[in-house]
């Protein structure tokens, strides 16, 4: 498998008042295409920071990051947005759907930004929502859906445009075990069916059990890398 994510000697330091906080201290990591991996570690270990840097929504203080063959280290904000739109899908911890749009509209949002026609969007989004068990709820607003249903909509939004990578930051953090398991099963199926690379950040045992690779971080460094 070819490397889809390459992180070389990445550091990230930010200031908390006058005190520098070293979130990442020289991380080297390679993720291959089609992996179903998790960045694990306690709070403050740097897993979310690393995920954000890979997703081009945060910048590294030093080092180099390549995603899908593109050097994303020094992208401008607009270049980063364009890159994310075509290459990366995001699933966030707190659902983060747009409350004024229906489940269907949230799911098609990225496709719409890409300029895909309405008819084409419908062909893509409706089966995906049906696949995740939301066929009858696609015209509901987020507040009319449960947490698990919202997170499934967020997953469909992330994968609808067939990105090469889906980055999921603590996707099960707000869900009960049963819902979490169901959501992970959905993502695992999508990974297998479409070959989309999934990279999670989580300390949820349920996620760690399903992941085929666990990269452990502590105090901004990789301290373990286990393959299932």
């Amino acid at each position, binding site marked *: 498998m070819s490397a889809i994510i390459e992180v070389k000697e990445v550091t990230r330091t930010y200031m908390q008042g006058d005190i520098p906080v070293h979130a990442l201290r020289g991380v080297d990591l390679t993720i291959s295409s089609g992996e179903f991996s998790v960045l694990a570690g306690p709070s403050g270990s740097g897993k979310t920071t690393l995920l*954000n840097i890979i*997703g081009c*929504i*945060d910048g590294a203080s030093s080092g180099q990051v390549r995603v899908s063959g593109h050097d994303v280290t020094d992208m401008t*904000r*607009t270049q980063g*947005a*364009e890159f*994310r*739109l*075509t290459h990366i*899908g*995001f699933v*966030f911890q*707190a659902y*983060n759907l*747009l*409350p*004024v*749009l229906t489940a269907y*509209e949230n799911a098609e*949002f*990225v496709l*719409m*930004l890409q300029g895909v026609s309405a008819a084409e969007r419908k062909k893509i989004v409706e089966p995906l929502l049906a696949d995740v068990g939301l066929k009858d709820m696609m015209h509901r607003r987020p507040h009319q859906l449960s947490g698990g249903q919202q997170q499934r909509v967020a997953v469909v*939004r*992330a994968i609808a445009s067939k990105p090469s990578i889906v980055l999921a930051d603590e996707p099960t953090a707000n869900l009960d075990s049963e819902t979490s398991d169901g959501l992970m099963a959905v993502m695992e199926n999508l990974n297998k069916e479409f070959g989309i690379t999934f990279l999670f950040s989580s300390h949820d045992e349920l996620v760690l059990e399903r992941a085929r690779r666990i990269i452990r971080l502590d105090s901004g460094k990789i301290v373990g890398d286990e393959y299932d």
Partner: protein
Amino acid sequence: MIFRLAIRNLFRNRWRSALTVGGIAIAVMLLVWTLAYIEGFVAEMVRGATAVDIGQIKVQNPEYVERPSARHGFALGTHLEDIRAVPGVEAVAPRVRVYGLVGNEDTSGVAQIIGIDPELEGQVSVLDKGITQGRWLGKGVADGPREAVIGERLATHIHAKIGDELVLFFEAADGSLGNDVLTIVGLLETGNTAIDRNAVYMNLTDLQYDAALEDNVHEIVVKTTDILAADQIAAAMRPKLPGLAVRPWKEMVPEISQMIDVSQKSDLILFAMVYLIVAFGLFNAQRMSALERTREFGVILAIGVKPLQLFGTVLLETIFVTLVGALIGAGLGAALSWYHTVYGLDLSLFSDRANFDVMGISFSNRLYFSVTLNAVFKPVIYIVPVAFLCGIWPAWKAARLSAVEAISGRT
């Protein structure tokens, strides 16, 4: 989708959006109403100034303009026909005007004595509509009774009434003392103070004879089809009237023209004051709306919306809410102003006087508005830059957000 997002965001906090739209609508409604009031006032003033005595364009001997004297007339010749041929001219009427004493055996007063052709005069002025007692002048009959119509206030001053004789004394064009005895056949109230207090109207040919003017007149009054085009029509007349002064109303009553300019410029001050208040409310509402959605903006930016697109969305919300409010306000303002156009505004609510004078023009207590496109759409057009200015800051802040900080709530 961006547009849909912007519109739906406005319905999230319906009370806030409704109050914002309502505030803008009320401000625009009041501005439309005020502009229609001012335009009605100005129109009334221009009408009052030009419809009675001054006319829209006046042709005179330049020396008469410098020094009004009976001797500074000019031969009528074919001027009436020449002027009628100019595009935009609706009607023309010649006049003779001298200054002197009028009175009876009891008392006298200073007056301007104006000789007119009753038939032609009715086409250029509304003098005949101002008769309050008696009748308008009849066509002069050779050796017939000589008639006069005088201003009502003049009549009061000299204790004259219909049927009384009126004695005139004035300097004729040849330097001699002109005089005549007329019979008062009508009293006049025009709303023009100078006319109502000082004017005596008589037949043109009678006064030409009395003042030794022969065929000469002192002025030709011109009515145009479009009073606002009087300058251009006067310019078109000048080549046909060599040696004569052709003056549009703006030149003859510059104070009214200046007053129109001032009122138009003072519109800007009014707009500035009202829209400053609107801007504070609008800015605050949009700023709050943007601040409440910081996390959402972070997500939008993270999934691939460009900062400029987010800027546009937030700005569009502000412009949309403003335009909805402005259009509602313009509609309400137009409706209210239309009511006052038809039924007038009773100013006696603010004054116990039956009428009032402004720059020699008398206004009744009921002022009729003028609803124009300018009055209705100017407030809408002028609020657009206000919306831009109020929307730019929240939009800029949203576009400059760090997705990471916004999602984590660290902004």
